[in-house]
């Protein structure tokens, strides 16, 4: 189970060969708590029917510890679990990856291949859900039209488990 190279690239690194035209910036806020665990994060696209249309990323712990395997807590990403996770066999190449530390995380997706290429034209919502062990849960949404005819940006502020989350589409 490997993180897709495109996901692992941060903004500081060299641009990939293709145009990065669908970019999600996710801020995981540093938290001063006695017991900190990195959050599980799911990023997906919902159609107008509020059903999952595409999974973009799921960051979770895909290993055993003394409390069990990391998949045990995937249902805590409640909405993602309901809409996609419970029918998905993880890990999924190019989608699932390990949890990320606090800081600005970038998810840069190629729209010509992968999940986004399969999206039919229409109105969609980007959904970002984060849940932390012995912490809280937060879900944010950014609407967008697909495909975008002009550059589109959307931004939403989290209040607990997520910081600023933004979407930038450059056709």
């Amino acid at each position, binding site marked *: 189970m490997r993180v897709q190279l495109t996901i692992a690239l941060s903004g500081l690194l060299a641009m990939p060969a293709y145009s990065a035209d669908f970019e999600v910036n996710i801020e995981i806020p540093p938290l001063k708590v006695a017991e900190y665990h990195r959050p599980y994060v799911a990023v997906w696209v919902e159609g107008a029917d509020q059903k999952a249309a595409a999974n973009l990323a799921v960051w979770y712990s895909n290993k055993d510890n003394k409390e*069990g395997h990391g998949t045990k807590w995937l*249902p805590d990403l*409640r909405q993602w679990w*309901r809409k996609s996770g419970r029918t998905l066999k993880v890990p999924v190449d190019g989608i699932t990856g390990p949890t990320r530390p606090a800081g600005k995380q970038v998810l840069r997706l190629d729209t010509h291949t992968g999940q986004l290429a399969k999206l039919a034209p229409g109105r969609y919502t980007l959904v970002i859900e984060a849940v932390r062990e012995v912490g809280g849960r937060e879900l944010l949404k950014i609407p967008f039209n697909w495909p975008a005819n002009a550059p589109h940006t959307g931004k939403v502020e989290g209040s607990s488990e997520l910081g600023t989350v933004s979407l930038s589409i450059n056709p």
Partner: protein
Amino acid sequence: MKRSIILAMAIVASLPLVASAHKAWLLPSQTVIAGETPWITVDAAVSNDLFYFNHVPLQIDTLAIIAPDGSRMAAQNGSTGKYRNVFDVELTQQGTYRIGTFNNSVTATWEVNGERKRWRGDASKLASALPTGAQKLEVGQNISRVETFVTNGTPNETALKPSGLGLEMIPVTHPNDLFAGEESTMRFQIDGKPAAGLKVEIVSGGTRYRNAQDEIAVTTDANGEIKVTWPNAGMYWLDATTEDSQVSIPQASKRRLGYVATLEVLPQ
């Protein structure tokens, strides 16, 4: 392990299954779960308050655990305490499990030499329990269920199939797909036919920390269906009781039907 549950149950067999005005329930530790073979634990109790153990354990000698493929599974690690029964279930399959007790019994009262006797038990044992010369015999049939639902991974419907006997709930909205603020549909049937006009009561847990039951009272429509919009996330107790005369025991005149489910509603 199963035997230990049965043995333990013999101790509380003298207690009523559902004492009047008390609530019977099964409380699973988790209803939405993921893993290869995760475990859940279930409390079985009868109490006034939801979901607190402070009266008597719920009899689980008729416990049936229906696996996602429709087969029956045994409970494990059963234990009877003063206030509750506890057992574990290993969710070895992916899908939805139905965990429930099923009671099909008779209650009989009669008089011998002017002395009133009361008996409760299996219908097949009534004849032998009845002394010669019993007078003013009154027999009632009771069919009741206490259920809950748990899903490992992807939900499925196999374990939700009704048996066609007594009062049953057919979840139209999957019972492990209930969310606060959303509407869910449930259908009730009696002997396989829609139970129209059935009164259903729904109470959320945590009653100790509020001053009213805040029950949701709904009545089934012509199709036996109710629609409920869950006000909050939490564990809910759903109860319906009714009476009819569709008895299957010759001496009986009335049949009491009961259905209870514990349902978990998740936050948005």
